[in-house]
C-alpha cells in the first residue's frame, strides 16, 4: 500500500456511512411507522 491509504480508506468509510447510514435510518423510520400504524388499528378495533 502506498501513501494513498488514508484517501482510499476515507472514501470506503464514507461510502459505508452514507449508504449504510441512510438505509438503516429509513428502515428504522419504517419500523416506527409500522408500530404507530399497528397501535392505531388496535385503538379502532
Amino acid at each position, binding site marked *: 500500500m502506498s501513501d494513498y491509504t488514508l*484517501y482510499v480508506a476515507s472514501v470506503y468509510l464514507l461510502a459505508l456511512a452514507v449508504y449504510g447510514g441512510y438505509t438503516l435510518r429509513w428502515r428504522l*423510520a419504517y419500523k416506527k411507522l409500522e408500530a404507530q400504524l399497528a397501535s392505531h388499528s388496535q385503538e379502532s378495533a
Partner: protein
Amino acid sequence: MNILKKIQFFVGLATLISLAVGLWYVYQAPADFQQGGAVRILYIHVPSAKLALLSYLFLTVASILYLWKRWESADILAEAAASVGAAFTVLTLASGSIWGKPMWGTWWVWDARLTSMLVLLILYKGLMVLRHSLDDPVKGARATAVLAIIGAVDLPIIHYSVVWWRTLHQPPSLASGENAQVHITGPLLPPLLILSGAFILLGLYMVTVKARQIEARRRLDALEAARMHHDE
C-alpha cells in the same frame, strides 16, 4: 406489500453478496502504474456517479408515469428515487474530491462533470424541498413531477454548456486534459464491473426501503386525517 417485502429481501441479499465479491476483487486488484493505490477510490466513485444519474433517469420515468397515469405508486417511487439519488450524488462529489486532491492537486475543478454533478445535487434537494413545502400532497406530487422533467431537460444543456465554455474560453484544465482521462483496463476492470452491478442492486434496495417508509408514512397520514375528520 408482501411482494415488496420479498423483493426487498432478495435484492438485499444479492446486494450484500455482490458487494462482498466486488470488494474482494478490489482487494486483489493490483495498483495502477500511474495512480497507485488511489485507483481504488474509483471503484466507489465511478459506480456512485453512474447510480446518481441512473436514479435521475428512474425518477424522470416515474414522474412521467405519475403525470400521465396518476399512479400513486409511481409518485412514491419518484420520491424514493430523489432521496437515494441525492445520497449517491453526495458520495460521487465527496469521493471525486478525495481522488482529485492527490491526483490533480486540488479538491475541486469546475469541469463539466463536476459542475453537472453539483447542479444535480441541488436539483435533488430542490425536489425534496418543493414536495414538502406545498400543503396539498397532490399539488406537491404534481409540482415535483413537473420539476423532475424540467431538470431532465436542463441537465444535458448544463453539461454541454460547461463543456463548450471550457473548450472555447478557458485553456484546457487538468480535468479536461489527456492525463486526467481515466482509462481503466486489464486487471483493474473486473472489480469495477462487479461493483457497478452491485451498486445497481444497492440502488434498487435503497429505493425499496425508502419507498416502504414513504408508503407507511402516507398510510399513517391518511389514517390521522380520517380520524380528525371523524372527531369533528
